[in-house]
């Protein structure tokens, strides 16, 4: 394998890359329908397995909160499983799980998702439950008190996790003026004073037809389902106009924080502000993050973990959000090596700024992103997630066109785009050191 290695390697990369895009062309094709109340429904029929994945994506999360009600979206998510007009406490979970399904939810900054994976026979029940959850939760006071205690416990669990609090701290500092600085889980004070009124107000404001995308992937019949959906979701009100928070961070920060924590190794995050989801710069930066820090042959992994042994782990990624994103490099290192690691990271960024990247790296990165997409979308729930999240963040085309946009990026684009976000200063960083 040593003769002509470079040539063969490059050839391998270039020829093997292109077939992926054709494989992906149909993977995310959906039927897109707006119900009469404005609810967007995305449907994909696939009869390989007798399963259905059903997800309701609501355009609400901690980005839509203030320091008064921080944590309300997440608290709300907890409460919706409790009691609705039709279902008594604990019934929803019981009904879904006893039909062989799984139900859960997640709250993020820009979105909240409720999802059900279930054998196809139980689709009607699942639809009914989703409709109930997003419209008819009743918020009994007693249950709010109970759930308050549970969430306070969840906060403690969160705070016992060093990587979680490192991420919280980084967000707090890099977003001084916009709601992305809030923790999704809220804090003890805001959770203690979370009232029934606050929860209901948030529910009425955001759980409305024109703010929700319903995604259904699996063993369904689109023809039969459409009239059914119209009927089930018809009562869901629409509301407008919805409050759109300011999510563009204009105050560029410069911070370098080192804190002693109860940890065994040093944890670090370094990074700077990135583009919003509306900005096509994201594709070049996705690729750059892959080149710098995804996979064993990425630049930082090779240099810092393999060659110089400065870190135990390291990765780079672009966090793309509705508002300002973050280009970040994170990892773990021995306490005595972390400052040298940070210096190497800085040099790595300067190198890209000065010299850009090469064809081979770009081709490799495209393959990695493509294959990650392929494997991530193998299951119905994977497909539904990609479609739902992409639509909530931006629009339906976003997920469908993502790989095409990645494939279009050229070597010179990387350097050019990078200049917009990195001008040679040391990246912001927070490091947790062992005590």
């Amino acid at each position, binding site marked *: *394998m040593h003769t002509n290695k470079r040539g063969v*390697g490059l050839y*391998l*990369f270039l020829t*093997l890359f292109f077939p*992926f895009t054709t*494989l992906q062309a149909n993977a995310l094709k959906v039927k897109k329908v707006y119900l009469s109340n404005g609810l967007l429904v995305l449907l994909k029929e696939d009869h*390989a*397995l*007798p*399963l259905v994945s059903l997800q309701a994506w609501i355009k609400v999360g901690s980005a839509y909160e203030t320091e008064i009600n921080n944590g309300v979206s997440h608290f709300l998510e907890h409460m919706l*499983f409790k009691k609705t007009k039709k279902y008594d*406490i*604990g019934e929803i*979970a*019981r009904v879904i*799980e*006893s*039909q*062989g*399904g*799984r*139900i859960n939810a997640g709250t993020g900054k820009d979105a909240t998702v409720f999802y059900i*994976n279930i054998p196809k*026979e139980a689709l009607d029940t699942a639809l009914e439950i989703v409709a109930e959850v997003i419209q008819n939760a009743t918020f009994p006071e007693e249950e709010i008190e*109970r759930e*308050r205690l*549970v*969430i306070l*416990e*969840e906060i*403690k*669990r969160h*705070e*016992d*996790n*060093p990587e979680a609090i490192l991420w919280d701290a980084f967000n707090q500092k890099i977003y001084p003026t916009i709601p992305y600085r809030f923790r999704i889980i809220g804090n003890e004070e805001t959770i203690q004073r979370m009232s029934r009124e606050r929860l209901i107000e948030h529910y009425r404001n955001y759980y409305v037809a024109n703010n929700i995308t319903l995604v259904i992937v699996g063993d369904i019949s689109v023809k039969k389902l459409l009239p059914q959906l119209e009927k089930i979701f018809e009562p869901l009100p629409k509301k407008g106009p919805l409050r759109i928070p300011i999510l563009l961070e204009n105050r560029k920060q410069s911070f370098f924080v080192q804190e002693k924590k109860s*940890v*065994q*190794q040093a944890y670090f995050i370094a990074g700077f502000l990135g583009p919003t989801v509306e900005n096509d710069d994201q594709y070049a930066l996705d690729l750059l993050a892959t080149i710098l820090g995804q*996979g*064993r*042959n990425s630049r930082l992994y*090779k240099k810092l*973990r*393999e060659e110089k*042994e400065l870190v*135990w*782990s390291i990765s780079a990624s672009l966090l793309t959000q509705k508002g300002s994103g973050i280009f970040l490099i994170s990892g773990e290192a*021995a306490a005595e090596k972390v400052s040298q690691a940070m210096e190497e990271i800085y040099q790595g960024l300067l190198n890209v700024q000065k010299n850009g990247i090469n064809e081979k790296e770009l081709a*490799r990165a495209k*393959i*990695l992103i493509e*294959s990650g997409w*392929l*494997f991530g979308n*193998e*299951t*119905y*729930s994977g497909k539904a997630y990609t479609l739902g999240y992409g639509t909530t963040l931006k629009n339906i085309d976003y997920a469908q066109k993502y790989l095409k946009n990645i494939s279009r990026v050229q070597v010179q684009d990387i350097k050019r785009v990078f200049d917009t976000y990195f001008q040679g200063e040391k990246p912001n960083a927070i490091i947790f050191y062992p005590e």
Partner: protein
Amino acid sequence: MAIVLSSFFVAEIQAGINKHVFPNGLTLIHKRNKSNQIVALELFIKTGRIYEPNEQAGITHLVQTLLTKGTKKYTASEIAEIVESIGGILSTGSNEDFAQVSSVVTVRHFNLAFDLLFEVITNPVFPEKEIEKERQVTLAAIKSREEDIFTVAYDYFNQNLYRNHPYALPPIGTEETVKKFTREELVNYHRKFYTPERMVIVIVGNLSWGKVKKTVEKTFASLPKGEELVTAPFPEIPLSQSIEKIYPQKFKQAYLMLGCPVAEGSHSDYAILKVLNTLLGGGMRGRLFRELRDKHSLAYEISSFYPTRKSTSHFVIYLGLDGTKLNQAKEKIQEQLKRLQTELVEEKELEEVKKFLRGNYLIEHSANRDQAWYLGWWELMGKGYEYDEEYPQILSQVTAEDILNIAKKYFTKNYLTIIIQPEK
């Protein structure tokens, strides 16, 4: 109707499984899946924590990590390059009972992926520099276990329950053992255990049985058989009395883990214990979630688990909670355990539990790599790949009486309770 339905689910998934055992003892299992272009290759090796002497705890893990860090043909970097160039995944792992190398690629790259798999399994060279690097990374990972409250509690649980048994130590090893591994030890361990009669290869994807069998024939089937290895019988782990151990730690939460030894995976009690586990700790409908979280707000994280093991396993109930609520939690748990031993589960609840298990089965068999994993896993666990097919049916047969009897058999004896207390 329910039974017909479950057979239908199973027929969908299990259509056309091929198995062949080669003369050198290598087992090959194959299933054709035409619905996508992804091929999953799972290679299981019958070696893991349970085959390691305690002074060599973690050797399987280190050997596994090093397989992709240099072979006769390729350096670590070249291996990564090949995998990345085909957009594939090549990963290694090990646990208490077995080791595993997984490769996931698209059909067009099957040959390349398979050749690489064969190369890393049969020809690792364990370069000194890579050994030292991975040793340090492993030592750091061992230290980092102390940061997660569940891991801390579970490590204490295993230490106290298993004592001299291999399961007492985690598969990653300990600082003492990992510090000392020499290259010679790693090479010898590999030579001893990575032999064809200890391997099960499972391939799921849009490839024909003929093609797959031929590919394996040309490679793995020509490996010489290894020496017959005699595994010493595992030490018994009776709990002669109930034990409670309290460990003060720097966490905000307290943690409670309560359990007892129970049957291994190949035992006839297995399926009943699985149903019981789901009854107590399955999803949000499990009794523990409903009682201790929904009703009494004692925890955010609460459940039970019963891992499938080759040797004696354990049934564990656990929760993360406020330190002031420990006694209340212990009481409630005892209530639940007592209930299992005195009250027959109602038909309705039992049916719901079974349906949940069958639904989960379906969901967990969605991806090719999941299907490949389960087929191989049952071979390693001693019940054969056919058990994966039979499992939903067996679950359906569990009765309320079975559950009552199993609860009486295992839960009336002694418990081990591990408590993590926040330091003042």
